[in-house]
């Protein structure tokens, strides 16, 4: 199991009130799986994604990422785990606007030093080619379309060769056609053996996954195995 969660609870303090964002969530994700976490806003799906992405620690419960228990990790160890194990893809792309697509893809490599310096550029170019942007390597983000920007973001997520890709509403800012292409790209990456976790409120987006985890009010309402769309 690449992700194993047992009775995860996350409580936020908002002013005087405690808000239970996650209330005893247990789940596991196998390596190489394509999973969608679905739910309406406020269901706790973003909180769950932050926990799986090691951006946050649970209030109680156990969370293992690739066999490592994260709830007792220090910030430094978490940062390292994020850098090596997880590639994030965001709804708003979050590219650094001042540097080229290439430099954006290279950025995570300078935090996690697994790729030798001399090989970074070549690897970044290969990743951009892999997401279909071989001809846009030196473009600045504002010279790219939304779909292209998200492809740069995906290439960036792949920079340190992570086992898990975590995507938070990756098609939320894209039109349907572009969105479909991005989702197909995720499927292709999944085929190569990478674990993909997509967080979304959109049933159509979720239908690209093999398994859909439905969250409501911080609890798992149901888990469905589906025949993923578009895979022949």
């Amino acid at each position, binding site marked *: 199991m690449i992700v194993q969660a047992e009775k995860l609870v996350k409580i936020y303090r908002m002013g005087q009130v405690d808000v239970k964002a996650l209330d005893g969530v247990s789940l596991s994700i196998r390596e190489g799986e394509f999973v969608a976490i679905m739910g309406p806003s406020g269901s706790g799906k973003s909180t769950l994604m*932050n926990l799986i*992405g090691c*951006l*946050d620690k649970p209030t109680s419960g156990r969370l293992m990422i690739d066999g490592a228990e994260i709830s007792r990790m220090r*910030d*430094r160890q978490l*940062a*390292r785990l*994020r*850098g*090596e194990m997880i*590639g*994030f893809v*965001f709804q708003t792309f*979050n590219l*650094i606007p*001042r*540097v080229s697509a290439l*430099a954006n893809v*290279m*950025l*995570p490599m*300078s*935090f*996690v030093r697994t790729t030798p*310096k001399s090989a970074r550029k070549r690897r970044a170019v290969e990743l951009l080619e892999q997401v279909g942007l071989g001809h846009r390597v030196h473009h600045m983000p504002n010279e790219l379309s939304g779909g292209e920007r998200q492809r740069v973001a995906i290439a*960036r997520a792949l*920079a*340190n060769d992570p086992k898990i890709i975590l995507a938070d509403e990756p098609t939320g800012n894209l039109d349907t056609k572009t969105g479909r292409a991005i989702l197909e790209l995720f499927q292709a990456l999944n085929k190569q053996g990478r674990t993909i976790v997509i967080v979304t409120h959109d049933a159509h987006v979720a239908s690209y996954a093999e398994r859909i985890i439905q969250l409501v009010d911080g609890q798992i309402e149901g888990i469905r195995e589906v025949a993923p769309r578009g895979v022949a």
Partner: protein
Amino acid sequence: MELPEALRLSWTNIQSHKLRNSLAVLSVTIGIAAVIAVVTMSMGFQDALLSTLTKDFLRANMITVTVKGSQSLFGTERVFSERDVERVRQMPGVKAADVFAPVNGNPLKYEGRVLPGNVRITTSQEIIPLDAGRFVRGPGEVVLGVDPAKTVCERLLAREQPETQKKHEIKARCEHPGRTPEIAQKLLGQSVELKYLDREKRVHTESLLIVGVVKESEFISGGNSYVSVDYQGFTETIEGQEVPVYTGVIVSASDIQQIETVAQQLKEYFDSYESDARKLLGDEKEIEVNTLKEIVDEIKKNFAQFTAWIGAVAVVALLVGMIGVMNIMLITVKERTREIGLMKATGATQGGVLKLFLTESIFICLIGALLGIAAGIGLAELFNRLTVALFDLSEPIPLVFVLDWYAIAVVTGILVGMISGLYPAWQAARVNPIEALRYE
């Protein structure tokens, strides 16, 4: 994150906000430039002063003895007797010893007109450099200072060609009387009048032949003329005897290596009641034995005090710069919150983020410091030219490149960057990535 990447990110950020980052750089530049300009100028002035002193007026092996507290390098209190000088000449390591004193009388006159400057008595040819002629050898002769020589020259030329020459043309021709051979030729052989009191306090008026002109110097007043000891008018009674007394003794050591030993001997002699000077002075006042080193040290000390004062002003200027840079860095951190969140999500540690922003702040201040050094040198050169124009110096004060101060400026720049960047960088390091990635 490695330095090249950090620098590249910082550089792209600095470039994308050129104006405000330029202003931040400028706030550091101004402080550094002010210090470098002042230091460069004062060092230049110090060096020029010292080199003129040592070249024209002080020999490295020279020692002066005066009563402490005199304003003049050559003393004001008349306590040194010829017997003292004789004793000094006997000391081992002493090559020559001479006396110094002002003449007890009126300023020189030329054709009834009073000449500027004072008249001094000395036997020492060694310390008075000349532009023309020779030093006085006995009574009836005078070496003119530059200022009185100019006045004599102007009178001479005006008399020679009363109609054709205009006043300012005459002035121009007499600008460097000792250095213009044609003028010097005319001056040597002219006579000036000296009215003085002799040892019996009788008034004498005597005509003196001009035999030389004192060397010009930018920093030492050119007013003093020199005559021989025959014109000494002051006496004191020492052990029942009336003897002439002088304001100072000038000693040259035979070997520059021995200068401290000779100075020590002089100090001992003049502190003991063997010396006439001590007998006249009693225990109250101190007799100073100055070597060139001490004079140079004294001058350097004065400049160092000045520099320390400038340093205090610089601290204030840099504080202002620091606030400017800190302000910009705080804005930068705020603006790049999402970027920080992303970096953290992709594996950057708190320390990594801290370093990134600290690098940027240091980078800004370092650019500021480097520009400040360049601007400071430029300013110093500008002021130099202004000084030359304003005070009519024949040649500019040479620029001194104060390398150690440049190093200090660079280090200061880095320090200012660290101090002003620390709080903003700490803010950046503490950014919560979850909130940052949601930040609009």
